[in-house]
């Protein structure tokens, strides 16, 4: 099978890099999981704070690689024109990859304070904040890559067909770039700092990234179900409206108890209670489209990933987010393992799975076939279940740990100190780690599925069937 547009091929290295970095993220997750129960595991080679930084930064970077790959794949098809500059896309890939790799090497080999000194943090202090730990040159690199990427995608959309999917994707990508600029604003007042820090973190994952998610999901469902574009576009309008209405003011649920005015408890509570709605609509959308499909696409694995994205995003972002989003509940749960439970399932359900959905759909085509061989798809579906079920268990164990933590640390008449409580959560941390090992096994199966071929007799039987047909 040929690509519709040759420039779509630039997506391939982005997807490969994304998967490679995903492996790194999970390995560091397992190291962290062990450090929760064996405090000095790999110390001083990899301290906990460094492992955590690498784990979360790799997640963000590989998802960005996935989004960029997705954009390079779907935009030419949506706009019905070749990419404005495939060369620029290739160049940006290498710049982003080298910058990302150097940053991780910096985290692992140089003490963080020294890294800050070496990279000019005194010129414009931006480091030292959760998820935004990157040195200044890396942050500037991200801005350059994002702007050049937007130029490339924007010019392609400008010269080609304008569709709702393309425009929603572009809106999401512009938002991603714009809100990242707040990473450079680091006021000395801690409350003000946290206030704007959330403009990057929250407005990414509960705002503009959801637009990117909707666009990618809409594109894949359009291709695999054959449902009319108009139907998919109407659903997307509903989802995007719900996202923007609930997500932006819903930022307020991060403003409880950090020194901001009390009215945020109302604004945050009301609007973030609405935040499950777009995910609810997304799940109905996915299943409705598959139920109404007009064609049987041979790529069953991609269909499974798309359906899984709807369900798991609703569970992780919607349900587990709602669990602790109301101010009176958050008063007790703020910053406990319940937050970690929500974070894990929401990131996996919404963003990891949507990137794996587009990879599952696009990679076979990028490799010259409509769908992978049957055995490869079976393995891929096994990996889907292994990773998804283990993530459900990671979430449940962390939730259990969080409930116990809240009780011991904040409810009982004589609350216990943090570390004393942590000691009593060890059983849950061990179970979480074991679930993480199963996740890694699932990821290994996933990667192996790219190299799996049908057994000779299966392939012959299929060829025979094709010949008969």
């Amino acid at each position, binding site marked *: 099978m040929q690509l519709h547009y040759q420039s779509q091929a630039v997506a391939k290295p982005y997807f490969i890099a994304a998967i490679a970095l995903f492996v790194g993220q999970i390995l560091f997750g397992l190291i962290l999981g062990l450090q929760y129960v064996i405090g000095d595991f790999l110390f001083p080679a990899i301290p906990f704070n460094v492992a955590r930084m690498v784990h979360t930064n790799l997640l963000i970077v590989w998802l960005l690689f996935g989004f960029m790959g997705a954009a390079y794949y779907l935009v030419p098809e949506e706009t019905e024109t070749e990419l404005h500059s495939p060369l620029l896309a290739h160049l940006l890939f290498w710049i982003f990859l080298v910058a990302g790799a150097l940053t991780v090497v910096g985290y692992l080999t140089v003490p963080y304070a020294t890294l800050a000194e070496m990279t000019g943090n005194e010129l414009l202090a931006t480091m030292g904040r959760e998820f935004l730990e990157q040195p200044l040159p890396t942050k500037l690199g991200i801005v350059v890559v994002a702007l050049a990427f937007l130029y490339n995608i924007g010019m392609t959309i400008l010269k080609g067909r304008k569709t709702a999917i393309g425009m929603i994707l572009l809106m999401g990508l512009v938002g991603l770039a714009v809100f990242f600029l707040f990473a450079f604003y680091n006021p000395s007042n801690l409350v003000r700092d946290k206030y704007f820090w959330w403009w990057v973190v929250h407005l990414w994952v509960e705002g503009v990234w959801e637009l990117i998610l909707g666009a990618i999901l809409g594109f894949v469902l359009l291709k695999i179900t054959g449902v009319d574009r108009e139907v998919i576009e109407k659903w997307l309008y509903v989802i995007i409206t719900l996202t923007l209405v609930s997500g932006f003011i819903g930022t307020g649920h991060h403003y409880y108890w950090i020194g901001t005015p009390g009215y945020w408890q109302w604004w945050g509570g009301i609007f973030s209670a609405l935040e499950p709605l777009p995910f609810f609509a997304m799940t109905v959308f996915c*299943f409705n489209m598959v*139920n*109404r499909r007009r064609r049987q696409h041979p790529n069953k694995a991609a269909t499974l990933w798309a359906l899984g994205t709807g369900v798991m995003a609703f569970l992780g972002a919607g349900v587990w987010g709602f669990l602790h989003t109301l101010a009176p509940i958050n008063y007790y749960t703020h910053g406990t393992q319940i937050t970690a439970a929500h974070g894990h399932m929401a990131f996996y359900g919404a963003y990891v799975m949507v990137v794996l959905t587009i990879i599952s759909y696009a990679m076979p085509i990028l490799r010259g076939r409509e769908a992978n061989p049957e055995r490869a798809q079976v393995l891929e579906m096994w990996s889907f279940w292994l990773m998804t079920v283990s993530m459900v268990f990671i979430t449940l164990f962390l*939730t259990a740990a969080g*409930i116990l933590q809240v009780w011991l640390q904040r409810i009982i008449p004589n609350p216990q100190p943090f570390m004393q409580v942590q000691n009593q959560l060890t059983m849950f941390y061990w179970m979480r780690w074991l679930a993480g090992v199963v996740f890694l096994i699932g990821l290994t199966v996933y990667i192996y599925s790219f190299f799996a071929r049908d057994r000779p007799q299966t392939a012959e039987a299929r060829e025979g069937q094709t010949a008969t047909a």
Partner: protein
Amino acid sequence: MPASPEPSPIGDASPPGQGLAIAAESLYLVNLLLLPGLGFLLLLWLYFRHRKDAPPLARVHVWQTVSASLWAGALLVLANLLIVALGGYQAAWTWVVVILYFTTAHTTLVVLGILGLARALAGQPCRYPVIGKLLP
């Protein structure tokens, strides 16, 4: 997960009873998510009003949702009361079990409702596993 027989591509015309099927699935979800009790009463009203004259598609969805709502009441209210009664109100582990159980049971019921609603929107029948009545 609702039974998913091979999809029958649907045309533009809605099959008879689709509106009622969508209403039933929506009320099931309203009962779980927005107005517990009131949503169920409205669903019961729908059931008694249309139990004899509903087209087959609507009948399946209405029966399924009434049956699933009754199960939901037992699974969410009675089971949790039992856990609290057995474990004690002041025990940490009671709350670990109650919150985990309630969240997973409630979420599972909601997801089943979402899948049912998606099938109703597509004009297709649906059967909830275990808690749904068998298809006629």
